[in-house]
């Protein structure tokens, strides 16, 4: 086998990494609950309430509801992605199997890289299905609300997916550094759900707040959704600055995680 072939992940390696994730029943259940489950439950409850008392509860479809529920999907898909990322990054080490893989002669970089597409192949379908259900509900149950356009549905879907993928990469890199699933999930969730909103509120920090990935992701919220899909204050950023912030954070997480993964004593 050539040196290059040993450095690059192949299809079998990716499939093997996917197998490790999809065979974890608990992980499948939690991921499904945080993505598809949330959409089904929120829509089912809202539609039931609407049917019982249409004067008090509006229809679950339309642009505004799409914004609200997409925000929820993005937030919870990020949680699910962080869990999957942390597990993918630390699973082999936690189980003590990393050493067994390292002694095969396969490069550690290859082992590190192969887990990324595998974990994305695991988590992305859940997010995609969850959003597809919501997109369908926003059209079918729009009632008297304006229906979202195809363009809005598409960019909202991409925004939801970007949020999930970004927090996956962050958690994956962090877990590769710490080697601990629990710490990585805790740190990413605290950063996503508490630290980012808190710092974003401190106006005196000015443009420094733009360095937060949560702020950058907020900036990418489709404008047609209005405030329905926004969590914090509006901090104006250019698309290029937004993209740069997200790319630098993700790249930093992967580079540091990759370096730690390939250089640690096992």
């Amino acid at each position, binding site marked *: *086998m*050539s*040196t290059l*072939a*040993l450095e690059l992940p*192949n299809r*079998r*390696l990716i*499939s*093997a990494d996917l*197998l*490790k994730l999809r*065979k*974890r*029943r608990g992980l499948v259940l939690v991921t499904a609950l945080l993505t598809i489950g949330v959409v089904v439950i929120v829509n089912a409850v809202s539609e039931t309430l609407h049917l019982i008392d249409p004067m008090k509860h509006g229809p679950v479809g339309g642009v505004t509801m799409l914004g609200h529920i997409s925000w929820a999907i993005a937030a919870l898909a990020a949680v699910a992605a962080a869990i999957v990322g942390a597990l993918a990054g630390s*699973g082999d080490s936690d*189980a*003590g*199997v990393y*050493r*067994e*893989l*390292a*002694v*095969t*002669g*396969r*490069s550690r970089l290859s*082992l590190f890289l192969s887990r990324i597409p595998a974990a994305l192949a695991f988590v992305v379908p859940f997010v995609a299905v969850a959003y597809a259900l919501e997109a369908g509900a926003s059209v079918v149950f729009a009632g008297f609300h304006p229906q979202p356009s195809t363009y809005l549905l598409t960019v909202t879907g991409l925004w939801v997916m970007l949020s999930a993928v970004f927090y996956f990469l962050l958690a994956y890199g962090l877990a590769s550094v710490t080697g601990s699933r629990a710490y990585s999930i805790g740190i990413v969730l605290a950063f996503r759900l508490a630290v980012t909103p808190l710092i974003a509120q401190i106006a005196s920090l000015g443009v420094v707040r733009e360095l937060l990935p949560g702020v950058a992701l907020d900036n990418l919220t489709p404008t047609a959704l209005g405030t329905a899909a926004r969590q914090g204050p509006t901090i104006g950023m250019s698309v290029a600055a937004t993209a740069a912030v997200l790319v630098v954070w993700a790249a930093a997480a992967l580079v540091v995680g990759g370096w730690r993964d390939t250089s640690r*004593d*096992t």
Partner: protein
Amino acid sequence: MQLELRLPAAGTHANGGPRRLVLGLPPLFFGALAEGRRLRLSEEGRFIPQAQKFRLAPDAHVGVAAYRRGMTTSPNNLVVETEGLTKRFGHRTVVDDVRLAVPRGVAFGYLGPNGAGKTTLIRTLLGLTSASDGEMRLLGLPVPARRAEALARVGAIVEEPRFHGHLTGRENLEIVAAARGRKAYELIDSSLEEVGLTARADDRVKTYSLGMRQRLGIARCLIADPELLILDEPMNGLDPAGILEFRGFVRSFVGRGRTIVLSSHLLDEVEKTCDYIAIVDQGKIVVQGAIADLQANGRPSALIETGETARTRTLVAAHPAVELVSDNGNGLRVTLRDVDALPDLNRRLVDAGLDVYRLEPIKPSLEQRFLEVTTRLENAA
């Protein structure tokens, strides 16, 4: 001298690379090549110049056998070589200037007390931690420079074998096979069969006993079709039947011309399982060689029982041929510089009026040799 031949596409290496053969051959071989003579491989597995027959080096058959399996051999027929290998953690030297030479086709025991640096040496050899100093070669390839190539033909278990408990035994092997290459997948079933786990292959590993995990660990090594197996304390957790079975596996594996290096603190097991041995103490190899040779080189000793142990001890210790006297149950164990001194020792005891109930020379054992060369003896003295 060393010659490397890249062979045509009759097949590929187990890990996808080209077939390759490196032989240590006499100068005549190179003379034949220099003269432009063509070579062929005979039915007996010998390289023969078409115009002239010649004799191969005595160990060349090993290389040819290896070639038939699509492997590479070291020209000097050593599968593990280290020179001045040292590993330090801070100021603590765990592996100290180790010069190890493991011949091909043997079971090699790396024997030492707990904390002697056995696992660290194995981890260093496998590239799981970097060496502080020294050189290493695995299967004739320098590591870490050509670590990936070397490890592709090495199976290893470091400490206890670990698995993903939520996956089945077969799935765990598939994961490692994915890292090793296509050929490894094809060997999963036969490897499971070889370790007797076929019936439980589709059960989750978390339901396996420790012994079954050890066997699954061996199966995981076997899917590499390894030339060299490196096993760290492989007898841990095995019941007596499992140990017997493991011993049989080692002999069968070695019988196929392959090599096993196993580390252990279980002297008895190493003696029963291995052909060659290195005894390590405090990170240093204190002695290595064939077990039979080491036993032969051990100092002779004898068990002595008389009616008065205290007087006997004084008399025996005063004899010029006696090196060490220690208690041994009801009597004394005497280490001698010269076994021929035993009749004289007996005479002195009888002349002193002692009733000698037992005076039994002991065949030098590996245990005795082990104790002689490790610091345990110093501590006990």
